[in-house]
């Protein structure tokens, strides 16, 4: 008994010594400027608390945090990356970071990805962070997309979660017969329609085809693309979507679901918080994966990833790298993504998922039921110009499906210019 105590005391001392040695070798100093786009109240508090914990570990560091409005950030990033660069900045994965990577404004952080702690735990998002065989940042959170629905309405009309296209349509018909719209959507800011295209295309032709399109290798006038739109049109012709969706933002489309005028919403997991706040309980609200359309096509999902980068013009890259390591560590990932904070999925495989039915379902779906691959999102996978034109075309298609030929011809023209 006594000897075990002694042994553990020894071990403890050794561990302590090791940890001080570790901290000593990493004592950081100087300024660390961090720019964040997490301007909504909850993410903002999460990030500030996380930075405070980092500060505690590195008291010698003078950390300066700037939070910029999420929308304004998207245009300001161009200026501050070139003129007065911070040491760490938030952004998005995949094609969304390409312009800055190609302009040489993001630091190559492949060295971080070679470290075992990151290489082993972050493998699933490595692809989204890679351009030209190098990694340009680290992810800090991601979230699933899928169909959030009113379980009480489905139960009332005797419906169950659909697993294929036929069930999806027959469910929808039942709802319509009872005066309930199948899906709410607000397309004023266009990107919500991009989500529908992503899923219809991923389910009709699969992940690889979708990515070929994103890379510009498929003509928009291709018959396979038309098939995706033909499927979409079936829903539009049924009247599946709420009327006048072109007038609403995604938030303004939420009340249709809350009031029971519409039964479901194809959205990212961030829609759960406002739906709960609007009074829907977890008994009324549930989630299912977008059903299969073409048999045999492997399921693939959208899971947009938010990221941290080091600008190439940063001054304190050593501290910035340490900060990136800190952000993706299992402990921090568990904390910042839990229900009280971001309420999303941790990127570190060793982190634990919070006890929340949507996060659990989303995590299970992405880790075991998305064999086809994981896409980012339409406007992050496709180049900016192509995405902007295409999403506008999707909105037009959803209002005037007869304009399809004209829309596709236009998009094909844009494709030929963008990917020349």
């Amino acid at each position, binding site marked *: 008994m006594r000897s075990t105590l002694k042994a553990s005391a020894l071990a403890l001392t050794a561990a302590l010594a090791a940890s001080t040695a570790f901290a000593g070798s990493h004592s950081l100093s100087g300024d660390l400027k961090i720019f964040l786009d997490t301007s909504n109240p909850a993410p903002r508090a999460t990030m500030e608390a996380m930075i405070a914990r980092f500060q505690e570990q590195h008291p010698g560091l003078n950390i300066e945090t700037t939070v910029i409005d999420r929308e304004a950030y*998207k245009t300001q990033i161009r200026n501050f990356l070139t003129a007065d660069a911070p040491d760490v900045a938030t952004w998005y994965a995949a094609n969304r970071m390409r312009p800055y990577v190609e302009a040489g404004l993001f630091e190559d952080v492949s060295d971080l990805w070679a470290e075992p702690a990151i290489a082993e735990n972050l493998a699933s998002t490595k692809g989204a962070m890679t351009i030209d065989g190098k990694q340009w940042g680290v992810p800090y959170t991601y979230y699933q997309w899928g169909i959030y629905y009113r379980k009480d309405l489905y139960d009332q009309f005797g419906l169950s979660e659909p697993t294929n296209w036929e069930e999806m349509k027959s469910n929808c018909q039942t709802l319509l017969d009872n005066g309930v719209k199948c899906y709410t959507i607000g397309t004023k*800011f*266009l990107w919500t329609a991009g989500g529908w295209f992503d899923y219809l295309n991923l389910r009709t032709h699969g992940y690889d085809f979708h990515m070929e399109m994103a890379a510009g290798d498929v003509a928009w006038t291709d018959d396979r693309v038309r098939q995706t739109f033909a499927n979409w049109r079936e829903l539009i012709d049924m009247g599946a979507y709420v009327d006048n969706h072109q007038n609403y933002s995604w938030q303004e489309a939420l009340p249709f679901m809350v009031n029971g005028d519409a039964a479901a919403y194809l959205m990212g997991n961030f829609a759960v918080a406002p739906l709960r706040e609007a009074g829907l309980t977890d008994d009324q609200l549930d989630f299912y994966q977008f059903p299969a359309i073409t048999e045999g096509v492997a399921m693939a999902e959208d899971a947009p990833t938010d990221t941290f980068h080091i600008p190439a013009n940063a001054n304190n890259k050593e501290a910035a790298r340490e900060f990136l390591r800190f952000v993706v560590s299992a402990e921090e990932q568990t904390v910042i993504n839990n229900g009280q904070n971001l309420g999303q999925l941790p990127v570190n495989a060793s982190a634990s998922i919070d006890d929340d039915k949507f996060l659990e379902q989303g995590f299970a779906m992405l880790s075991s039921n998305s064999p086809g691959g994981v896409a980012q999102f339409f406007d992050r996978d496709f180049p900016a110009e192509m995405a902007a034109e295409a999403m506008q075309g999707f909105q037009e298609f959803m209002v005037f499906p007869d304009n399809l030929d004209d829309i596709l011809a236009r998009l094909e023209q844009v494709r030929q210019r963008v990917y020349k």
Partner: protein
Amino acid sequence: MTTATLPDTDPPKRGWYKRNEIAVTPWLFLAPAILFFAVYVIIPIFQSFSISLYDWDGLGQAEYIGLANYQELMNDRAFEVSLWNNLKWLVCYLLAIPAGLFIALFLNQTVTGIRIYKSLFFFPFVLSQVVVGLVFAWFYLPNEGLLPAIVGWFGFGPVNVLGDPSWATYGIILAGLWPQTAYCMILYLTGLNAVDPEQVEAARLDGAKGWKMLWYVIIPQLKPATFIAFVVTIIGALRSFDLISIMTNGGPFGQTRVLSFYMFEKALSEYGFRMGYGAAIAVVLFLIMLVFIAYFLWSMYREEKGH
């Protein structure tokens, strides 16, 4: 013989500035304005011209492509739509001038509390354009809005002004007319104060009244007010940006864009990485504005000559 001391004809030696004072001083006073005008207006105009000849994403290397951006504009339907919308704005916005005049005539009387009525009519001009846009957007909302309710009383079907590509632009212009009319009204109210009562008296003795009095006696005297109202309305129409951004964000599917909004979308928005193309749109917008600017300068020049 004593020599009379002549007054010293040779003045004491004066500095360069003293010698050139008359010529230099105006330029000194003008210098700050000229400097800022050059840096913020003149030079950027030429920069826009030069950027419009490049293919540039605002970050990397710019590639010289000659007039290719302009060639693309010729076949760009979104550009065409924006151009037509600009024209709609210019024409419809001018309605603010007669509307402002009639409200001014109506309010130009002495009744108890007229100041309150005047300020109520002037109120929309004080509001931010963003607020005006929001209020009108709610007014037009397809299900909850006031307009569909009013139209419903008269037994007409549902209207979705901002969601219908053929009506949305007119819906936004109407929202813009509300504050613009108030602006023109205030210009005419001050103008009416300066109308010569003797001329009105004389006209009345000659038997003029009603429309004839207005057209031949009052309106000619309001010419300076009309000119200013015209200038501010044209400028207001050409820089219509905030209302569009708030009410429709250029939608549905880009049918309510005007050139300034399209330029912003192409060059500076979330997905805009085409500085060259945006600059080309800006140049076209500049040339359109130049027509009006030239006209204004010319009429002001003529005015000065006349006196």
